[in-house]
């Protein structure tokens, strides 16, 4: 059993796997940020539709979150502050997973607000699965991300 775990650990820390994980995270997060940055009011409405945050916090979230996605997505690809970006991406994914699950459980018929704000797709189990896979990529990037194409090995 421990051999199997070691094997998985070895594969997940293989440098091409690590870089692929970073690339996937980066591309997805940069893409996800663009429309939200263009249309903060639309994104605020999408957050409001989840009925989870107090109204007073919604706009702050709608202003900051897309930029956090863009910056972390860029850093995780170019190899600067990879661990910090991976940690933040993981935290964002954890929040998305909680929000999506809660909306699914409450049977909310709302659009996801994940990638696009207009005529967007609804929320579904599929989105949750994608987020869990991305979370795995974030874990790989956090633990092994600095092994390849990284400008620095983190702060000391």
């Amino acid at each position, binding site marked *: 059993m421990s051999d199997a775990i070691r094997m998985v650990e070895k594969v997940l820390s293989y440098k091409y796997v690590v870089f692929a994980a970073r690339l996937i995270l980066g591309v997805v997060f940069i893409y996800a940020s663009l429309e939200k940055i263009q249309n903060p009011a639309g994104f605020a409405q999408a957050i409001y539709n989840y009925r989870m945050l107090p*109204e007073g916090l919604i706009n702050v979230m709608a202003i*900051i979150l897309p930029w*956090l996605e863009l910056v972390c997505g860029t850093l995780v690809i170019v190899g600067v502050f990879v661990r910090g970006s991976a940690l*933040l991406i993981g935290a964002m994914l954890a929040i998305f997973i909680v929000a999506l699950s809660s909306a699914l459980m409450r049977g909310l*018929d709302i659009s996801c607000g994940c990638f696009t704000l207009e005529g967007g797709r609804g929320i579904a189990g599929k989105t949750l699965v994608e987020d869990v896979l991305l979370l795995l990529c974030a874990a790989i990037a*956090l633990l092994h991300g600095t092994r390849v194409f990284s400008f620095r090995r983190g702060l000391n």
Partner: protein
Amino acid sequence: MGDILARAVKEAAIIVAVVVVVAMGVNFTRDEGIPLIAGAEDFTIRTNAEFMVAKDAGTLFENGAAIFVDAREPRLFEAEHIEGAVNVPSAGEDLGEVAYMIPADPVLICYATEAAEREAGVTADRLLEIGFKRVYVLRGGLESWKALGLPTVEGTGP
């Protein structure tokens, strides 16, 4: 492991600090910027028009008994809109061809996307103001329409 996490947290704190400054700065300077604190009234739709669910709107559509009014900006209208709909953006001044229909007083069903339902409310109120009597807002927007398999088209025409 603990060491990795400690470094990651340090880096994350720096990233967050920079991002907060950049995001707030950009939001403050751009036209599309939004206020930092919003109230519930910013998100709830206020309109004098009545709501109509997609099922009822679909029946009127099939009987040709209503005109659909897309309240979104032209770029989004072009990408996809309800078949036969006319575009009256909530942000614009021009009511376009709809203005000529006042004497006939058709049933008008305004819609946007679900997340932008307020825009549909704004256009609906403008139509009520200029004299239309039978104006509705499509509840759930374009998404609820498509969820019932009702038709949409691309392009600038209806």
